[in-house]
């Protein structure tokens, strides 16, 4: 039901140590956001894209499709950054509207291009993590980073329940649709409300049953989960260190020369 979750279990990089992937994605992401340069963004976009598609084996068109998910937000907010409403026309272009101008300057145009590329490159970093690492592995890494135990446990339970509730909700929605539950707008609103309330009801029932089951298996306030652990490979760690150091040097070097 959640495509990314399905894809990441089939990724060829799934059995690589999760800490390595997490470190690579987060460090590259930070470098990319900090530098805000077009060149760095292109490098990061290319490297993470190639890693995800060729090494991870994620279908290329799926990847492109997912890159376009945040597009609506990107386009709308970039429109807001680029276009200005003022009495005086700026240097890029100006469309007169009454006594005002819808106008834009080269400066804000470059700013917008920079922003779009940085954002896309950061999204590709995020995708490298989420397309190649199953959620339990990420939670395991968070636990090792001394994230509060309560939080990690809550995350683990929520992750499990999401799929339970999704299957319940899709079954309800399907049966509503087969009974013309979406025949007009008013009915579909009503169906959605009914579905959501029944979903909450069912989830409470499930929670009660689950608690009884856990209690009967000696639940004492902590959940013990067996984690699969894959040893980190020295080759990968060196590759990550070298890539990110080169990227950092490139950013510093550019800062000096420009």
């Amino acid at each position, binding site marked *: 039901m959640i495509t990314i979750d399905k894809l990441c279990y089939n990724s060829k990089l799934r059995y690589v140590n999760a800490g390595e992937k997490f470190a690579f994605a987060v460090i590259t992401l930070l470098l990319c*956001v900090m530098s805000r340069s077009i060149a760095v963004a292109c490098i990061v976009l290319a490297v993470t894209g190639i890693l995800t598609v060729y090494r991870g084996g994620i279908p290329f068109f799926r990847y492109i499709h997912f890159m376009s998910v945040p597009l609506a*937000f990107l386009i709308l907010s970039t429109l807001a950054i680029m276009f200005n*409403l003022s009495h005086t026309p700026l240097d890029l272009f100006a469309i007169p509207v009454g006594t005002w101008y819808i106008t834009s300057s080269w400066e804000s145009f470059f700013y*917008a291009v920079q*922003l779009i590329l940085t954002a896309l490159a950061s999204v590709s970093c995020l995708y490298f993590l989420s397309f190649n690492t199953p959620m339990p592995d990420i939670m395991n890494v968070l636990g090792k980073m001394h994230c509060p135990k309560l939080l990690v446990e809550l995350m683990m*339970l929520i992750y499990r329940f999401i799929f339970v509730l*999704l299957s319940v909700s899709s079954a309800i929605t399907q049966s509503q649709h087969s009974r013309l539950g979406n025949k007009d707008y008013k009915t579909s609103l009503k169906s959605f409300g*009914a579905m959501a309330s029944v979903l909450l009801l069912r989830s409470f029932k499930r929670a009660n049953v689950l608690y009884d089951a856990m209690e009967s298996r000696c639940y004492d306030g902590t959940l013990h989960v067996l984690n699969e652990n894959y040893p980190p490979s020295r080759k990968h760690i060196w590759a990550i260190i070298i890539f990110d150091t080169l990227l950092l040097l490139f950013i510093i070097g550019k800062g000096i020369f420009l």
Partner: protein
Amino acid sequence: MSHKQKRILAVISAFSLYFGLMPTASAMHIMEGYLPVGFCIAWGVVCLPFLAAGFMSIKKVLDENRKALILLAMSGAFIFVISSLKIPSVTGSCSHMTGTGLGAILFGPAAVSILGLIVLLFQAILLAHGGLTTIGANTFSMAIAGPLVSFGIYKLCSKCKVNKYVSVFLAACLGDLFTYCVTAVQLALSHHADTTIMGALGKFMLVFAPTQVPLAVIEGIITCMIIMALETYAKPELRSIGFMKEGR
């Protein structure tokens, strides 16, 4: 074609392009990498006291009643699922609820702050809504500011003896609108290339208004319907989470 006709054509095609984009418009998650590092950290720090308060309150509840952990986790999953489902919207496009208004009314703002953080992390990783660096800003607008306003309005209305459904509608709707305003402020503070901050704020508000204002109204209506149905079918459950204190 005369010059005027051309201009009219251009305006019309711009409009249709704009509304053609709407189908993919989701709730206002600031996307990954859109905020400068300074702002990412600053919003994260602003969130910390609220998250700490939420954490403490959850911990206190759990010490009294262990079962609450399962209930909390279910509520978190419920918020995630509600916010990931497409809701019917006027233009036939697909849009999502934030779900946090409902959460704040049912479970209280303290629990929602922590649940919201986890839900946003899941949304970033599993659905590609939002991101890791912008999680501070998103948490502040969606899991703290919006729910606080929703909860405040709900309590205020029940103090003033306003009809329950009206107050639920107002709480969910205004909470959603407030989330949208906070997000616009966050964007304006970090990106104002050649205008003032107020000018940038106006532009962001204007650009996102066509998607967000109808969405807020729909969210209000749906939240109202959910509460109505819950009161009919699920009185004991509602009492167990402390939503209906008056034992009718």
